[in-house]
């Protein structure tokens, strides 16, 4: 747990630095203060992609090595990824309402494909909850985790593949499409969110270990109370 606390402290320091740069960096002439949302929105989506990529890798490693560690990492990474996807979707909707005049625009395939990705991983978590046996749960979710990652490139490249309202990548190999101060603020936030992801995932892995040590003490929902059979009921 000490390792998790250290990671949390480093992530918190980086988040404070990111927040400071977000609040002090210049704003876009047209978007005004709403420009700052990109410093939460873009890093959240980056972390979501990273989290689902790590899940796929951990799932494949579980299928190859069958060690609990990879299953715990896959589970922790999905939960963190779902949290950051929800944050990315929400901040995108707030920005859309302010700049496009509507929170949800069907002319933006990235919004729709991100929502689809979100539900794929909600399905992953539902599958885990529905499978009581730990080995069976690890095996089934590893298969789904390895397949579900195909959504990530689809979401990322959707702005390039389809006609879209969504802007394309702002930082490209041929240079950035915004001033240096904004680029620095964005990059610091990318780093801060990545550290936060690492800390949250490490913390969730510890929680999973604690849950496993208590396994057997709980029963799946619906199994806790069994309806008595008529043949077992004595006359009263």
């Amino acid at each position, binding site marked *: 747990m000490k390792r998790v606390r250290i990671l949390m402290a480093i992530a918190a320091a980086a988040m404070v630095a990111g927040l400071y740069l977000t609040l002090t960096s210049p704003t876009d002439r047209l978007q005004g203060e709403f420009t700052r949302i990109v410093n939460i929105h873009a890093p959240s989506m980056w972390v979501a992609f990273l989290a689902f990529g790590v899940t796929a890798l951990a799932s494949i490693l579980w*299928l190859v090595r069958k060690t609990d560690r990879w299953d715990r990492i896959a589970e922790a990474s999905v939960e963190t990824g779902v949290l950051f996807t929800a944050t990315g979707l929400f901040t995108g909707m707030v920005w859309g309402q302010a700049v496009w005049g509507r929170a949800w625009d069907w002319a933006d395939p990235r919004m729709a*494909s991100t929502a*689809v*990705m979100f*539900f*794929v991983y*909600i*399905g*992953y978590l*539902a*599958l885990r909850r*529905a*499978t009581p046996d730990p080995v*069976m749960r690890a*095996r*089934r979710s*590893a*298969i*789904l985790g*390895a*397949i*579900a990652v*195909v*959504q990530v490139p*689809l979401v990322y490249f959707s702005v390039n593949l389809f006609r879209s309202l969504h802007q394309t990548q702002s930082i490209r190999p041929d240079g950035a499409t915004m001033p240096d101060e904004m680029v620095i603020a964005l990059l610091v936030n990318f780093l801060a969110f990545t550290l936060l992801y690492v800390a949250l995932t490490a913390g969730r892995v510890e929680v999973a270990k604690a849950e496993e040590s208590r396994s057997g003490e709980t029963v799946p929902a*619906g199994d806790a109370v069994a309806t008595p059979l008529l043949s077992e009921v004595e006359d009263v």
Partner: protein
Amino acid sequence: MTFWDQAIEISRVDLRVERRMGDVLRIILPFAVIALLVFPLALGVDLSAITELGPAVFWAIGVLFGMQVALRQAADDRPERRDLYALLGVDPAARFVGRTMSGSVLTVGFMIALLVATFVLYSPRLPSGWPGPVILAVLLTAVGLTELGTLAGEVTAGLRSRTLLASLIVAPLAIPLVIGGSQTLESLTRDTSILPWLLLLVATDLALAVAGVALARPLEEASR
């Protein structure tokens, strides 16, 4: 028995079970036609809107109910049958391919029946030369849906909430199929190339086929 002999035999058994149980013909198809009826009733008697909506409703209902064809009760092997296949030395990949073949036959039949019902109920305006590309898109969508349904069915085999959970897994992953299928018709209407959308369907089908065959053994272990 070769790999393909096993796959064909499993497919034949599946189709025979389906002929006896009639899940698709007696339950899923009538339910899908009811869903086709619900849309115009909810929309009100606006004939031009109904005509306009026809193709979109066909693809939406086709995909949502098509996955139920892949997840039907008859396609859920009992543990005894799974053990029998394992003892007989049936290749898990052949099981996946056989199941996909039988499911595809049923899903194509289901979607063509649904297409006919859409014509009758919605009278959609379609561009000339539509039958070939649309039937090809239906075929590719059906194969992809069956592959996805077979994968999800195996992953959720034996769980109490199998049908609901598998639907939750399949529905978002089927989005490329919905886009590919519906945009094929849209491109025909706009007189633009349908090739990218057919390629999207082929790529999705191939990716799912590779995933299904590559993961066949862990899938078999997961479902027993």
